């Protein structure tokens, strides 16, 4: 008996509409020449121009990018080294630690944010009683972002390590390479696709984050999502549409790069078989 395809199609279309319609509306209205959020009057790039004249937005943008870059970089180094450590562990401690590693991934951001804030406040207070002049700001923000980025890097690198022939590392040692040289010359090139996609994921997660940043920063450092939030509280300006569109496009581009990297890797593996 042939089942009807119609219900399936309707569901597909509904999913697509719910997923993409809001973003589409956002993008379209970022080009609206009128302030109205209901009527589209005409095409303009004014909002984008205004955006780039807004110093607060620009400084938030540069802070977000620097933060994303630094936190992704640090998290990638720590995450890759940790993944190698996990890979070399015995099964039981590895399972345990991997479980712990996954907790921050599934933990609600608000809990991560609040708990990090508590720790930071505690530390800052302690250091300040010793006479230092610390406060929450870029430093704590960076630590927080590195913290929540590491698990994503580990999850991205570990499968690559698992695909390695167990003897590859030993073969490098056998040929006279020191352990460090063996990792640099043999293991790293093999897991590089995983390291790169881990770094990009970390970068996007960092740009994307609002909640954790909100709790772990001080008045001195404001990220772009926080800036947008602050702007919406006054009144919703089409500038926000423009800004959100730019962020969406950036994140989308990064996701596409990850996808391309992964498919290329997949194809290479298939060729090898």
């Amino acid at each position, binding site marked *: 008996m042939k*089942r009807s395809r119609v219900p399936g199609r309707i569901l597909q279309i509904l999913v697509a509409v719910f997923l993409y319609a809001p973003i589409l509306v956002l993008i379209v209205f970022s080009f609206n020449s009128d302030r109205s959020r209901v009527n589209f009057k005409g095409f303009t790039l004014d909002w984008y121009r205004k955006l780039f004249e807004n110093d607060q937005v620009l400084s938030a943008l540069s802070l977000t990018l620097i933060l994303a870059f630094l936190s992704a970089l640090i998290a990638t180094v720590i995450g890759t080294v940790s993944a190698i450590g996990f890979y070399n562990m015995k099964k039981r401690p590895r399972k345990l630690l991997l479980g712990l590693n996954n907790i921050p991934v599934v933990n609600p951001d608000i809990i991560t944010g609040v708990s990090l804030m508590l720790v930071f406040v505690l530390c800052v207070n302690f250091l300040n009683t010793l006479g230092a002049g610390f406060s929450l700001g870029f430093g704590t923000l960076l630590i927080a972002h590195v913290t929540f980025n590491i698990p994503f890097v580990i999850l991205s690198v570990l499968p690559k390590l698992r695909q390695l022939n167990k003897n590859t590392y030993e073969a*490098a*040692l*056998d040929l*006279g390479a*020191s352990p460090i040289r063996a990792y640099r010359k*043999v293991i790293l090139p093999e897991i590089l696709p995983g390291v790169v996609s881990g770094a990009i994921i970390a970068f996007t997660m960092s740009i994307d984050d609002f909640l954790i940043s909100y709790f772990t920063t001080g008045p001195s450092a404001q990220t772009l999502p926080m800036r947008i939030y602050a702007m919406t509280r006054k009144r919703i300006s089409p500038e926000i549409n423009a800004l959100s569109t730019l962020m969406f496009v950036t994140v989308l581009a990064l996701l596409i790069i990850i996808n391309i990297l992964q498919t290329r890797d997949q194809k290479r593996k298939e060729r090898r078989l």
Partner: protein
Amino acid sequence: MKKELIRLVDCTMAFDGEIVLNAINLTIHDKEFLTLLGPSGCGKTTTLRIIGGFETPTAGSVLFDGVRINDVPPHKRRVNTVFQKYALFPHLNVFENVAFGLRVPQTLKGDDGRKRRVKVSEGEIEERVQAALELVGLKGYHRRRVHQLSGGQQQRVAIARAIVKRPQVLLLDEPLGALDLKLRKEMQHELKEIQQQVGITFVYVTHDQEEALTMSDTVVVMNHGNIQQIGTPVDIYNEPTNAFVADFIGESNIIQGVMHRDYDVTFAGRRFLCVDTGFDPEQPVDVVIRPEDVRITAPEDGQLRGTVNSVTFKGVFYETFVNVGDLEWMVHSTAAPTVGDEVGLCLTPEDIHVMDRPDLFPKGAEALTIEDVDPEPEFEDKYADEEAEETET
């Protein structure tokens, strides 16, 4: 006698309390082709990994040229390994794979006693890599990517990569295991030739008794972490020290019997004259008889009488199973008897090998480690298939 190169003294290896090597002693000589032979889990690969430096023995010593090397890491040992699954570096081409070991800077002590880091010059690397590739029959393949090569070619690259370092000892861990039968035979031949050309020691691990017999100068038969016998292929085949070796090397009829006194043994319900001496009176023994040593005769001429149970054509000979009482005898002969016929079996005293019945399973040695396998269930693929089917219907 040739110069001694490697010596294992009372080497014991235990993984998580399970003994996989039980205080083995082994001497490897210079320029020798030595094969470690045994069923999987017998400790042969562990022995090889101890020599290579990838495992440190739980107890005992490894001596190289008389120097204890237990704690010398693999990259500082003058041995190179050809791994079971080749373990080539997929991101490098054939040339760079072979050149890998040469590009590692070496720390040498100069005449003034100071340490210097020395690199092999590009010219020399080029020369040596090409020579190594030529030796393994891969001239002109240096620009190929590794994954463009067949299994046999990858194996050759792995060998070239190891011998280009000019090690004193080459360790080979079942290097032909992944190849098909015909290629395996060719490679056996080639490996032996390569060994003679470069004139270095080969320590070869295999579970294939035929491979061991064809290639080796010395065969070491192992089981359950113990060495069962060390000898030339001819010795091992003709004079196995116990029933395990006899059974593992070629096929054998192994029958339990009793040795009454010298030259006098009872098995299969009959007393036989034999050539063995030196057993305790009335000692229980294993009697080993090669299937090609049993002659099939007319029923009235045989020492034993039985019924032909099955006959299989094996190419050069027929493999016949004859039931004698509750024993089944394997016979290899050029003539084929008829199934169901009554026949006689005849043995000459020289063909009866009487052996001590050893304790093949000493306490603690029974445990085998099973490789820590990460099973990767194919859930995703299966699921994708089901989904595809569903949308089609």
